[in-house]
């Protein structure tokens, strides 16, 4: 199996799906001639031409709506948001048009569209360029929300998302683009709504997604040195949430830490906790502890930014807390 970067795995998914289905097209700022602001769409313009790889003006609300209109009549647009921070301008088209079209039309008109791009923080991009909005989109019925952590999942889930008949919010990560990993070739379709145990362990469950999977795996290694076996459950899909896999793990470990990059209030972790405290009430030997981004706008300064982010040390401390070791 070849080893690819997360970026190239996404590129491969786009390439294969555009080859497979002529109705699939890519639209967004700098996706064509510039080969993508983060090079995810490198080579696609050359391969498919300007009709199917469409560079746009800076007008997120407009081109998100154009994507929805095209999806309403049967095309399968992939709309790139240069980053999910800029998608706030387009959120009316995602939430009021795409998410509701099938329901409002009594089932007549669906919206098979994928909105994709990097979310969350990178390094010192400041308050307006560092936000993670998974919990916002996962709040909305009619949307599916996917946040892959590895190159293999990135390819498999993007292929599944493009073939899905519902609007999908697909959140990548600038800090993940260079991550390397083995990626199955060809028809590698990862099911939507299915979490993945990335590391087995019996002592504590670390629920995570996207970048926080890397954090959780590092924490798990450190915990292992202290003789604690952590099970790392990568949600992969935020909505629909695979509560069974999480419950199965917590049923085994009886202790849980939820790790996410975003802000705490009503974040993805709050929903995971809500499910666990109800459906695993008798299984939990300790309250679920969350590790999140600091509840502040992202500062520019390097040291402050580091302090604002979830990291392995905080996860290790949280794990020890639910094990009553600290």
């Amino acid at each position, binding site marked *: 199996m070849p080893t690819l970067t997360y970026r190239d795995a996404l590129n491969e998914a786009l390439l294969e799906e555009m080859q497979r289905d002529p109705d699939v*097209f890519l639209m967004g700022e700098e996706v064509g001639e510039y080969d993508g602001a983060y090079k995810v769409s490198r080579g696609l313009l050359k391969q498919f031409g300007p009709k199917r790889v469409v560079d746009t003006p800076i007008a997120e609300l*407009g081109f998100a709506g154009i994507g929805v209109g095209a*999806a309403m009549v049967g095309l399968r647009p992939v709309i790139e948001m240069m980053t999910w921070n800029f998608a706030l301008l387009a959120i009316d088209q995602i939430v009021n048009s795409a998410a509701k079209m099938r329901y409002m039309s*009594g089932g007549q008109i669906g919206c098979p569209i994928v909105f994709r791009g990097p979310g969350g923080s990178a390094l010192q991009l400041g308050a307006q360029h560092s936000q993670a909005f998974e919990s916002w989109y996962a709040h909305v019925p009619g949307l599916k929300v996917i946040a892959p952590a590895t190159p293999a999942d990135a390819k498999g889930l993007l292929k599944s998302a493009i073939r*899905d008949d519902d609007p999908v919010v697909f959140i990548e990560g600038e800090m993940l683009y260079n991550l390397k990993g083995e990626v199955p070739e060809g028809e590698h379709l990862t099911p939507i709504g299915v979490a993945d145990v990335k590391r087995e362990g019996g002592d504590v469950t670390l629920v995570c997604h996207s970048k926080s999977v890397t954090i959780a795996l590092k924490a798990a290694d450190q915990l292992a040195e202290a003789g604690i076996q952590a099970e790392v459950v990568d949600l992969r899909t935020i909505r629909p949430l695979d509560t069974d896999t999480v419950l199965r793990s917590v049923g085994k470990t009886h202790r849980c830490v939820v790790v996410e990059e975003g802000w705490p209030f009503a974040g993805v972790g709050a929903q995971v906790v809500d499910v666990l405290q109800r459906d695993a009430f008798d299984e939990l030997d300790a309250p679920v502890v969350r590790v999140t981004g600091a509840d502040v706008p992202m500062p520019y300064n390097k040291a402050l930014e580091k302090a604002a982010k979830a990291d392995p040390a905080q996860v290790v401390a949280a794990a020890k807390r639910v094990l009553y070791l600290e």
Partner: protein
Amino acid sequence: MAGSATKPSKAKKAAPAASAEECHHWLRQMMLIRHFEEKAGEAYSLGKIGGFCHLYIGQEAVGVGCIASLRPDDYITCSYREHGHALARGMSARSVMAELFGKATGCSGGKGGSMHLFDAERGFLGGHGIVGGHIPLTAGTAFAAKYRGTDQVSACFFGEAAVNIGAFHEALNMASLWKLPAIFVCENNGYGMGTALARASAIMDISHRAYSYAMDTEAVDGQDVLAVKAAMDRAVARARTDSMPTLLEMRTYRYVGHSMSDAAHGTYRTKEEVETFRQRDPIKVLAEYMKAGGMIDNAGIAAMDEEVVAEVADALQFAEESPDPPPEALTRDVYAEPR
């Protein structure tokens, strides 16, 4: 009052010829819409229709004239004020009234309501509730037609207040930049709810907004269905053959309040103003044109009126007797059925 609507200016072009048969069809459609809306208003007051309900009384010529110019496989998206467009597109009075009543037999299964009428087979891609929100959708369906190489065109209907919102600006710039086969029809009825045009836009000539996008444009007498049809024909041809978009400003007027919860006059416009504009009632304008051309007489008009009254009465009864959607409809169509 704050300022009345832009005076409807005569279309620059000579009154275009239209066949007697076409005129009959349009007159009947406008009368059907007028009567349908009057009855819908009554049903609303009787509590049979809930929520918001925006009537199309006074603007019938725009919907009828424009949609008459479209092919069955063209695409249409509208704002929430779209009962007339739905009927003009051929959706049955039954299916529209049943939707207003929230019934399972409604065109959106009772889950859309007055503001969200859909009919996929007729390319009627909705009523939409966010001002200007459907303008990019039209650019999207036009993009799809061009992408597929069909010569379908896409028509968008929105009010004059929508030209001041970001979605209008972004969509028209891209529609022109990518030469999309779309016709953007602005129904300038003078008011956005209680706000007269002069209090919302820095320019009164809305058609001039097209210059920012190097887009063809025309201001049209929206009360004259023949003028509307002729202008739309030009725009449709431009879209269908040259794949070029057009902004049409239809100067029209609504004789009723913004919605059922807004008075027809007395707050932001006077009774006199409404009466003045009623002089050029689109139904009267066409009827007089037809009578002058010997296409119809008062008896014919009366007969036509009886037909539409019957059709609407049937629709009301159908809606009344139709069942509600079943309880499980609540959770249906949130997502596609898994394949």
